[in-house]
């Protein structure tokens, strides 16, 4: 008898992404894994840009995929983000006004 493994039971797989950080001037290659959370994905993308080409701001960073804002604890696998997909990382400016 075989048991189907859930996403959480599988070894993390590499997921190379086409990513852009906020108002940066160029899309970049950012490798993440299926096990990474959106918070980690945002940090991985920001690493290449924040404070380097786009001035760092004191707000949380959020990931958008296919036009949808994803929760910070959701993983890449749970979000259904596939290799070569595009993600956008933005500052959550709503915190500043709430």
């Amino acid at each position, binding site marked *: 008898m075989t048991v189907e493994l859930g996403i959480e039971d599988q070894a993390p797989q590499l997921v*190379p992404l*086409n990513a*852009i950080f906020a*108002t*940066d*001037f*160029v*899309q*970049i*290659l*950012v490798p993440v894994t299926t096990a990474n959370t959106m918070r980690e994905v945002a940090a991985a993308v920001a*690493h*290449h840009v*924040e*404070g*380097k*080409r*786009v*001035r*760092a*701001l004191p707000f949380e960073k959020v990931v958008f995929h296919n036009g949808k804002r994803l929760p910070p604890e959701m993983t890449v696998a749970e979000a259904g983000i*596939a290799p*070569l*997909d*595009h993600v*956008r990382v933005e500052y959550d400016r709503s915190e500043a006004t709430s």
Partner: protein
Amino acid sequence: MALRKREEWQHFVREVDWTFKYVDDEAVFPEWHCGTGKVPREAWQKWEEDYKVSYPEYVATQREKESSVYAVKAALQRSSAFETLDEGWKSSTKMHFGGVALVEYAAVLGELKMARFGLNGAWRNMATFGQLDELRHAQITTFFGHELIGRDPQYDWTQKTFHTNDWVPISLRNLFDGMMIAPNVVDLAIELPFTFETGFTNLQFVALSADALSSGDVNFANMISSIQTDEARHSQQGGPTLEILVEHDPVRAQWIIDKSFWGSARAFAALTGPAMDYYTPLEHRKQSYREFMEEWIIDQFIRTIEDYGLKKPWFWDEFMRGLDTWHHALHMGLWYWRPTLWWRPKAAVSKDEREWLAEKYPNWEKVYGDKWDVLIDNINANNVEATLPETLPWLCSMCHLPCCNATQSRDGVWRVRDWPLSYDGRTYHFCTNACRQIWWKDRDNVNHETVIDRFLAGQIQPMDVGGILNYMGLSPEVMGDDPDYAAWTKDYTGRVAVGLASTGGES
């Protein structure tokens, strides 16, 4: 004995077609090389060039041109003119030598294909002169660049560039293989002599020549002006070919012009744009890249294709908007990924230079100023490390240039948006809508993998910056760096800078 008048003998030397008795016409002029398509074979009998030339005339003129160029070169050989050239201008020439020398050789192959498979004797004759022209251009460009190797090893990339897997020549190989090596001769004559040579080389060879003279580089100006005189002659293979194609298959004619105009415009934005608006010293700039494009390309080209009964390409609005953004973003990309270049890109964003940019491009500060300010503050905080790349820019699957074209959002913010396409089980990304559309229509002709494709397929090892630079053929003594950081950052020293990365030095 008096010489006969030209009109008495010209037809003997240019009308050399005859009817084959022992082989089929298709065997001599196979469709896959000749590409007559919907045009009846006999329609090509009408093909006629405007400016006719015989072989003795050709040789006499070319000899004169060669003597003149090499005389100037010899006279300047012992002068110290090179040492006084600005580093930015030298970068423009390194980019030109590396980017152009072997494209000229590829053009030899394209002209030879037309010299063999052109569908009219006069056309084949003109292409025979054309291939001799291109051979001269490959030689002269290689020779002039080669002479400077002793003074600066980056000039070695004059002959080396096209033999490497650097991302810039991969992009150019993709463009020119599509324009010169892959097409049948009908498409080739419209892509290369008509669109590229009539439309675009004016910009590189006439406009850049003016900048060269102004920058004190007489040798370079002389070389490219000499080349341009050949272009003006052999580029006339395009007009008669287009005229016949338009009559029988206007849809194909429009498509060939549209896609080659777009590809040429992308390449010129990457190379000529930064050379004109950033690398040429401020006091020597004649016009902005946009002004040059408007004067030398846009008005003239549109007038020309409308004369043939064709329309503006479907992407015209996207192209015109790009004149304010493409080359500025590509300049920033070239600068940020400077270790991947064989020249020393100067940022050229001092206060005076920014004023000039803002005057020529009213949105420049809004779209690019904020990013340059962060880069400037990092340099002034002794944090150069933050301004060096740790990953690859995403490269467009069509033009192979970075996906970096911002457009204005409804909220007024300029953002780079994604142009994806899912096809055959994978996702492709494009820098613009038109690149995506051209790729889709031409996908069976696109044969080069981008550096991103190669990296993800494991062709580049180790998978880090060192592995990438090694794959591109860049050694430490050649890889690019800014020639003078202080020149463009000193205006801003001492200002308060927040929100910088904390890597490297103080921040």
